[in-house]
């Protein structure tokens, strides 16, 4: 075998793909020739593709599905592994292909969860019909509070409490999005109250509750959802799970969603299984707060 054969294989891989046997041959030849630039033909093909393709926007439904995939990627801990895996190997295509083969098996439960997600999404289509219009009608009108900057900023503290962090945000930031929590049903049976403040610039916010029933985290947890006007309303953004401890009084939770929030219109809290869910069945909505984009 000569480098010419390796060249043929690399061109074939860049243009029409190679079989597993051919890839093994590339691995063998490239190892014996200590070759560099094994992906140069693929990069050439990619550059040609860029030169010849007309870009069209991704449809909203595909984008929404991709955002969920991204959220799963982050939540599953795969993102945290990217740097580690990259640093420890996978620097060549053959390494990457090997990694990809190994990951096919890892991906099975991921796909299974996606199947479950789609099943849930199907039922969600039914549920949303009765849920969403009711929310639009029943909640307080949206309000965007333009908070003027404070002349005297509070002195920074070493470890501010969540309440102090929230107050600092309110005092120092303009264009915050705010809203008030309300129960979806009878306030007599679910006297939840409180508010939400969201900073579109830092993509962080705080939710404050009173009257929300304490939970046993081994039985269920509360999960925050963010409805974004620029996303399919069937798939709100996951704001994370939290617990309400067994004590009276106000509870503040800071949240920092993994997916970018552009135009939030409503926040919701549901009760879910421990650890939360990818898509809520929305059977136990405990609090709602309608807001407007800041």
């Amino acid at each position, binding site marked *: 075998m*000569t*480098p*010419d054969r*390796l*060249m*043929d294989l*690399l*061109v074939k891989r*860049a*243009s*029409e*793909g190679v079989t597993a046997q051919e890839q093994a041959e590339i691995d063998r030849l490239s190892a014996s*020739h*200590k*070759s*560099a*630039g*094994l*992906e*140069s*033909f*693929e*990069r*050439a*093909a*990619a*550059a*040609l*593709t*860029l*030169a*010849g*393709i*007309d*870009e*069209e*926007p*991704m449809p909203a439904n*595909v984008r929404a*599905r*991709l*955002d969920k*995939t*991204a959220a799963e*990627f*982050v939540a599953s801990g*795969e*993102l*945290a592994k*990217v*740097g580690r895996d*990259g*640093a420890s190997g*996978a*620097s060549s295509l053959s390494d990457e292909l090997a*990694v990809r083969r190994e*990951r096919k098996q890892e991906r099975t439960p991921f796909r299974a969860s996606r199947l479950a997600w789609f099943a849930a999404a199907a039922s969600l289509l039914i549920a949303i019909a009765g849920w969403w219009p009711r929310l639009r009608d029943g909640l307080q009108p949206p309000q965007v509070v333009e908070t003027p900057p404070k002349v005297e900023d509070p002195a920074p503290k070493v470890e501010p409490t969540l309440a102090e962090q929230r107050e600092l945000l309110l005092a120092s930031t303009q264009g915050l999005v705010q809203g008030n929590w309300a129960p979806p049903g009878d306030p007599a049976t679910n006297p939840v109250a409180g508010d939400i403040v969201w900073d579109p610039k830092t993509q962080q916010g705080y939710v404050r509750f009173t009257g929300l029933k304490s939970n046993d985290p081994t039985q269920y947890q509360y999960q925050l959802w963010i409805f974004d006007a620029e996303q399919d309303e069937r798939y709100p953004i996951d704001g994370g799970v939290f617990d309400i401890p067994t004590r009276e009084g106000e509870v503040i939770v800071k949240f920092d969603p*993994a*997916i*970018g929030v552009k135009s939030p219109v409503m926040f919701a809290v549901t009760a879910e299984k421990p650890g939360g869910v990818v898509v809520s069945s929305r059977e136990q909505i405990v609090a709602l707060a309608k807001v407007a984009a800041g």
Partner: protein
Amino acid sequence: MAESLLNRIAGGDARAVSECIEHFSGLVWSLARRLTRTRADAEDAVQEIFTDIWRSAARFDPAQGSEKVFVMTIARRRLIDRLRRASNEPRMESVEVLDQLPWSDATSRAEVCVEAERAAQAVARLRPDQQQVLNLGILHGLTHSEIAARTGMPLGTVKTYMRRGLIQVREWLEVSAGDVTEGAQP
């Protein structure tokens, strides 16, 4: 200089994952539509492509090319893989679409990157029949045999044109091929 999106993903920045979608969704979607048989295929493919991109982010080396080229390289691998697995299914594109030579106006595209401009310049130096081979193979995902059948060229000629074309583009991109040297001159 701002840190690249892919480097941020490699560093565990969750927001960069979302920004990556924002930045490259149009490109990846457009390529997926072109190199898949059905819209449903394209929708599935983009999920896999972006997952591949995120997983491969640590491999991105700015010295080897731009993020766009890296993303398109990953996207092409995945799409070619899917095409070959579904190779018995019929194609959706018409002959007229396949015969267009789309690189002639590449330099006038607003979002084109330096590598794309250079690739277009390299292709412009090839003969029309060589350009056609690259068009059918690279932009439309036809195999060498399919190109031969469609154009009437001998298979060996198709392979030669593909090889020479990619070598020429690679040279214009000034991409080092290390000690993988070309035996036959174009």
